[in-house]
């Protein structure tokens, strides 16, 4: 039983961190992994925003004279077979991969919320139909669905986003629906009813905002998996088309051929994907811990 210096412990435990930045800092200390995830994500987002500033070369310019250069001071991550700077491509790739990740998560999330809210709130046959549709979508392998969707729509950034977003809808909708069902039973919803509020207004004003926390947690977790799905699609040749440097594209089958002669072509994009997904997952985990009231403590 170690003696405890209360003042030190109190400070360390953030007893005085009650609001604002102090509290954020305190939470960051308590959830080191989550903070790391947040930092990673923030770095990637900043990278995406300032890609033009950070990248030292144009990611698309081809230069036969410096093809397949090893990593060096001039080209930190080497160059690809077209002589394009891998580092610059990864920097710009952040834009595309994050656009896919965030775009499809947002799209799938939004539709999922609408569907989940409607079916949870209205129940009845709307709910029944939704449940069956989501059963159907969930029984189809996600990648197969995305494959067929991109094949149907053609490979382009918006289409890839759509293709990845669609399988996401039932996942989100299920979570939101479950939450809505639980919320519907809460007294504050009854209280709203008892003052004569309309159902739609209750759904929008009382139910929806209270599904945000689980939604955010789900979204961060899904963000990672959408980035991975894009990578898999690109690997199979159906993701974002050349010459845009999405990370998945950079890792695609043809790049994989260089795995031994120019491993940097395979290693670095792989690390970029893994790191971004890792960051999103770390952050999502911590967020779940913080937002889940039962996990407090």
């Amino acid at each position: 039983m170690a003696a405890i210096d209360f003042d030190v412990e109190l400070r360390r435990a953030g007893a005085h961190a009650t609001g604002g930045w102090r509290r954020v800092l305190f939470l960051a200390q308590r959830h080191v992994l989550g903070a790391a995830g947040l930092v990673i994500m923030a770095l990637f987002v900043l990278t995406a925003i300032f890609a033009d500033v950070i990248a030292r070369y144009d990611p698309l310019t081809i230069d036969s004279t410096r093809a397949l250069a090893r990593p060096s001071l001039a080209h930190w991550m080497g160059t690809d077979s077209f002589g394009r700077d891998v580092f610059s491509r990864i920097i710009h790739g952040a834009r595309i991969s994050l656009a896919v990740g965030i775009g499809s998560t947002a799209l799938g999330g939004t539709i999922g919320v609408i569907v989940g809210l409607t079916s949870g709130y209205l129940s009845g046959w709307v709910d029944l139909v939704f449940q069956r549709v989501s059963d159907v979508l969930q029984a189809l392998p996600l990648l197969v669905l995305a494959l067929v969707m991109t094949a149907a729509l053609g490979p382009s950034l918006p289409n890839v986003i759509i293709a990845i977003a669609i399988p996401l809808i039932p996942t989100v909708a299920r979570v939101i629906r479950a939450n809505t069902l639980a919320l519907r039973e809460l007294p504050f919803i009854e209280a709203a009813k008892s003052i004569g509020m309309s159902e739609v207004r209750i759904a929008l004003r009382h139910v929806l905002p209270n599904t945000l926390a689980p939604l955010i947690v789900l979204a961060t977790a899904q963000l990672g998996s959408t980035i991975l799905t894009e990578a898999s699609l690109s690997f199979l040749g159906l993701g974002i088309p050349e010459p845009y440097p999405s990370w998945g594209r950079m890792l695609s089958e043809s790049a994989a051929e260089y795995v031994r002669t120019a491993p940097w072509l395979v290693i670095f994009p792989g690390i970029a994907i893994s790191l971004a997904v890792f960051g999103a997952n770390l952050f999502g985990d911590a967020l779940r811990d913080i937002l889940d009231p039962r996990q407090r403590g």
Partner: protein
Amino acid sequence: MSEVLLEVTDLRKYYPVRAGVLRRQVGTVHSVDGVSFSVGAGETLGLVGESGCGKSTVARSVLRLVEPTSGRIRLDGEDITHLSKTALRPHRRSMQIVFQDPFASLNPRMTAGDIVGEPLLVHGLASGKDLEARVAKLFEQVGLRSDQMRNFPHQFSGGQRQRICIARALALEPRLIVCDEPVSALDVSIQAQVINLLIDLQREHGFSYLFIAHDLAVVAHISHRVAVMYLGRIVEIADKDELFRDPRHPYTQALLASVPIANPLAKKLAPLVDGDVPSPVNPPPGCAFHTRCRFAMDRCKTERPVLMDAGDGHQVACLLNEGTGRSQLAPTT
């Protein structure tokens, strides 16, 4: 009592129990099984009973938050049992509800001010500056500072949260407030604050309360009349003093005897009943209490006693009270 504000007649609420592929109904929960009572203007009717006996269902039915299976609810003389949602809206202003769990009753994502102002907004009674002023006044009424309007529910303590709930109920200036165990979730030292507040507000505004609790002492303190429920039915209803002086129903007697008295010198606990409350899915035939009653006779198993007047507005549903109008049973101890 003066004029009758709320009159509930033979209220029943059955929930189906479903099972199977076609979700066929296989049974019925007799949550409320023929309940009649009335609440006068400015009066408090207390409703006590064991957990699951249907108190909340009565409360919700009165407010039409659940649709009663049968029976009639008259508010201020008007039958509101079958009014449509829109037709009901104006009546909603006359009755409000305060729930047991103040935290769950408040939307965690709205500020206290918004919560209290919402009924006014919904009914188009106020907006903008006017709304703010009225909310501030409500805050003051329930003993909250108006600068707390911008705080979120989690920033309040339990008692304060219940005050917000009460303020919300007051916003529409209702005539009847249904309180469904409003103090059960509160700390004992806070409970008194809320009860006092309710009493003060009643004195000021002349509200009627339908006050539900499982704590006899609390009910006794605040009510003018008390109704005792058992398994979906009212078994005894009487003036408060009358009820405590002369409980007629064996269940009421058991209830009274079971309350531990906060006095080490007073009588020791003596449980008067054995066994557990039967399930409302298959309530026992006859008198629902006969399975636990010390005085149960053969008739109790088949005959269902109805509420009968025992004088002074004291009504009991017990076969032992037949005829004489008076209980032959003196409560032991």
